[in-house]
């Protein structure tokens, strides 16, 4: 159950971006977020720049985790999809892999069926990219040397 560290290289990001762009076009979804199950935002596309994507990621991961815990109480391994219907915009969350979820925000310009159909395809494609990324050793260049004294300085100064 241990989560793996995720290192996303430029080429991974480009491939993920391509998959997400295709998903947006095919499904008619307005915004899409790729989120790890600890709540960290891995990638986003569409008009998502205007959203508080960091907060949505934390909340979506928590909602998905608590739904998974409920599933286990019913003897199900997981509920693989979570759907919240709003008056104007709705949210569809689905499993990518054991560490990641895909969140789509859509409106009346498409349907739940379309989002669900293409989310499965996008999840498989993006899951393959993440699987390769997580299987790779962490790049040495920037991380080989321990932190220097100046890099270890306090990040925040309390008010005096």
């Amino acid at each position, binding site marked *: 159950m241990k989560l793996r*560290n995720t290192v996303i290289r430029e080429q991974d990001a480009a491939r993920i971006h391509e998959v997400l762009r295709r998903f947006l076009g095919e499904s008619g979804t307005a915004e899409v977020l790729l989120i790890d199950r600890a709540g960290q935002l891995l990638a986003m596309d569409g008009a998502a720049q205007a959203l*508080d994507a960091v907060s949505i990621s*934390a909340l979506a991961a928590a909602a998905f985790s608590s739904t998974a815990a409920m599933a286990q109480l019913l003897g199900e391994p997981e509920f693989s999809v979570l759907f919240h219907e709003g008056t104007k915009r709705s949210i569809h969350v689905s499993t990518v892999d054991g560490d990641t979820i895909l969140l789509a925000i859509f409106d009346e310009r498409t349907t739940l069926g379309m989002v669900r159909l293409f989310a499965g395809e996008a999840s498989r494609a993006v899951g393959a990219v993440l699987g390769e990324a997580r299987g790779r050793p962490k790049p040495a260049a920037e991380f080989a040397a321990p932190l220097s004294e100046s890099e*270890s300085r306090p990040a925040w100064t309390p008010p005096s």
Partner: protein
Amino acid sequence: MSVINYANRVIDFKIVYYGPGMAGKTANLQYIHRCLPNANRGNMISLATGDDRTIYFDFLPVSALTVRGFQTRFQLYTVPGQVQYNATRRLVLRGADGLVFVADSQFERLRENVESLRNLEMNLREYDSTLDEIPYVLQYNKRDLPNLAPVTYLEFVLNRRATRVPSFEASALEGKGVFDTLNTVSRMALASEFGKRERRDEAS
């Protein structure tokens, strides 16, 4: 676990504030939220009951130093301290890169502190992890109240693992010790990504 993103040159960490109910975990995040300029923090989200007890978690994203070309960001979470919310506590713990155990310094809360620390260790085991593997600090909070247990006694009771961890006296409502705690745990989480662990990763 941490996310290193070369595309936008960002490293994200998750820090979880753990401890018994009413120990001051939410107060830590509220003080940080109050003090940091908007440019260094996002919105604070609190999933609380009507009487302001945390029912799921509090969440506050903060940005920190740029190290070797990477902006470092820390997502701060609290867990619900009340005993009955263990299922949600365990969910919030998932993927933590650093832990702050917030203890209530009052004598009458010693038992709850010990039980909460044991509960933390038990929940970490669910993720095949232990306190020895995750950067971790202790905060002895509420030092402004009467009936305090001496710090030496709290150290004896709560900081007794083979390797003692940094500990801080605090009064989170007034802000005392809050940033010392945050600076230390974030530095420890950051340091764990560099140097020693890197060589081990490459050897495996």
